[in-house]
């Protein structure tokens, strides 16, 4: 079996050479980051609200057992049925049973990362159900059985031309001669196709941005209105959410909602923020007759008890991806995980195995941009550093990397030796590189010199220069 890191490096290499991907990445994440900066500038209290948001999530996590119980009690009082699932398998079994009981044929889905986490579509399709993703981005990737490459913009890797190609291939009910002049034409065709699905679906499955203990409500945040139709029109609505989605009160939700859209897309708010509380009321002529909420753990309770608890603060805005230089260079698919980018590197080893995911923590320059924009102030570089340590201690990682780290440890822990080695290196490299001022090639630095020259040192170390300056040696 090929090691996960080898596969990862292979995907990174392909991503860097993929001109279509690079064209897509050149624009969208950059725009999202720019929009966030504008939204932040328009709200002077933005930074203070991040502290509030962090405190809300920390308080909730410290009392998670009770808030989950209160949520369950209140949701049940509204007529919803709450199911608990420790593992993806249990969550899928619960959902399959509900769909069978409903004698469903067609299932519509709103965007849900937790459903991606449990690979729900594959299992529903294997069981014979027709499953249609209704978020436009999710629909675009479903057409080619792809995974999302971003948690809020799942089709961020696709160019407009590629979207057109997929529609021509999939929507054979329309004439080949039709012309798509602009993105709006493609959106109009998707609207026409998906509208029929909304109106004839038997079961609607959505995620939840938040579950509120105080009222037993679930909240979804959308711009298209697709999740809203998915949860409103079919006879059965299933919410799939993880244990970290619960928050105490409606007031807490508002504080988090001030940050979520601004951090994600730079919007002051999205077109739709929808709170649903139980199945249809006796006075109503529409709305689902049955509402089920499936609450998944999948490793989160273990993270809760570890020094990685802060990763559970995440409200899934995607800002860490939009600001990450590594994500921006390789896109989401290269990570090979459900959650890509910095949050994926911090979360995946906890949700899945450390052995198969800890190498993702290496996909970071530790520039800290992710932590500086995170609305709930997750110390993402610290968490990634933790996984790097865990990987090293578990004895995984490449032999060269391990040997280099060992060698570094020997030198870095001995100041005298360190200075001697550095003086030697600076003097040698300074002498060798004096003529050109830079190296075209250096042993062990191929990753750098393949793409650019490495500037040569001046010949003396910083420590030497500092001492000379202190002693008044003219330079």
């Amino acid at each position, binding site marked *: 079996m090929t090691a996960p890191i080898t596969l990862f490096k292979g995907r990174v290499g392909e991503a860097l050479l993929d001109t279509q991907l690079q064209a897509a990445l050149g624009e969208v994440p950059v725009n999202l980051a720019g929009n966030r900066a504008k939204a932040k500038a328009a709200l002077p209290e933005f930074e203070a609200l991040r502290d509030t948001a962090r405190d809300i999530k920390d308080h909730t996590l410290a009392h998670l057992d009770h*808030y989950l119980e209160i949520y369950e009690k209140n949701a049940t009082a509204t007529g919803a049925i709450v199911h608990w699932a420790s593992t993806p398998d249990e969550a899928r079994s619960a959902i399959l049973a509900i769909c069978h009981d409903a004698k469903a044929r067609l299932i519509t889905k709103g965007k849900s990362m937790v459903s991606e986490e449990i690979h729900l579509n594959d299992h529903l399709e294997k069981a014979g159900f027709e499953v249609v993703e209704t978020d436009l981005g999710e629909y675009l990737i479903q057409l080619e059985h792809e995974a999302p490459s971003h948690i809020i913009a799942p089709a961020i890797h696709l160019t407009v031309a590629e979207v057109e190609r997929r529609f021509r291939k999939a929507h054979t009910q329309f004439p080949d001669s039709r012309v798509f002049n602009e993105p709006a034409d493609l959106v109009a065709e998707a609207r026409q196709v998906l509208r029929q699905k909304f109106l004839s679906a038997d079961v609607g499955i959505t995620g939840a941005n938040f579950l509120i203990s105080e*009222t037993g409500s679930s909240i979804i945040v959308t711009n298209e209105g697709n999740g809203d139709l998915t949860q*409103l029109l079919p006879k059965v609505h299933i919410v799939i959410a993880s244990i970290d989605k619960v928050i105490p009160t409606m*007031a807490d939700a508002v504080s988090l909602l001030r940050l979520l859209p601004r951090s994600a897309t730079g919007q002051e708010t999205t077109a739709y923020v929808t709170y649903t509380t139980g199945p249809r009321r006796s006075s109503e002529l529409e709305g689902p007759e049955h509402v089920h909420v499936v609450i998944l*753990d999948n490793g989160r*309770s273990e993270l809760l008890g570890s020094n990685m608890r802060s990763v559970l603060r995440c409200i899934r805005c995607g800002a860490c991806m939009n600001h990450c230089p590594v994500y921006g260079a390789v896109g989401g698919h290269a990570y090979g995980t459900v959650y890509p980018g910095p949050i994926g590197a911090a979360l995946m080893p906890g949700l899945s195995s450390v052995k198969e995911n800890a190498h993702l923590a290496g996909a970071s320059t530790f520039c800290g941009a992710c932590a500086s924009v995170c609305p709930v102030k997750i110390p993402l570089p610290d968490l990634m550093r933790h996984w790097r340590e865990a990987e090293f201690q578990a004895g995984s990682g490449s032999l060269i990397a391990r040997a280099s780290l060992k060698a570094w440890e020997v030198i870095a822990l001995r100041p005298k030796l360190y200075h001697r080695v550095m003086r030697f290196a600076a003097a040698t490299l300074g002498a060798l590189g004096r003529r050109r001022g830079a190296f075209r090639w250096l042993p062990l630095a191929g990753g750098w010199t393949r793409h650019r020259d490495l500037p040569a040192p001046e010949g003396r170390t910083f420590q030497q220069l500092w001492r000379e300056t202190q002693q008044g040696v003219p330079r």
Partner: protein
Amino acid sequence: MSRQEIFAKVRAALDARDGDGRRAVTEARIAAPPLHPRPARAAVSDTNARADFKRHLQNVSADFAAVAAPEDVPGTIAAFVSANYPGDAVTLGRDPWLAALPWQRAPELQRQDWKPGAPPRIGLSRAVAAIAETGTLVLSSGPENPASLNYLPEVHIVVVQSSSLKASMEAGIAAARQSPGPAGMPRTLALVSGASRTADVGGKLVAGAHGPKKLLVIFVG
């Protein structure tokens, strides 16, 4: 099985013990929800609320019409429909406030009762509140204002009274709640801020993804 397992793991992770006082903390927070810091623009005394509400809606390309009194509403709707969607009927639920409007002032305007199923071309709803902070309409579901009118029509017209304009999201949402707890919540509490839109095709913003392509807000008083 899973329920006990999850709760046991969460309690172990939190080092929870019976009688550790954490239950009382959670109940107290729910009985008296915290007053988190709010942005200055969401302050109760915001004198710019009206202008803010309009500006935020216009920023997301919603149409905004201010009228002096409820009796002006039918004529405003009729003019909008005949200019943009001539011949189309307006579909609405059983909202008593909307029903009581002097529709005879706009005899040319066709109205039809909402029924579940077929998507109407133009939906008409009344919002229980408006939020200046974000340019948001607050809609409570029920036979008066069915929730699908928010998402299924091509055009959504929402009437809201100036007296129900709130500065903050907190106050706007509170207006939709009859009482604390789950029973006081409408089944669907919809916060609507502009028409349906998407940027999933090439990152370009397009209106009318699945829901209304156009939102007209009629602000009364």
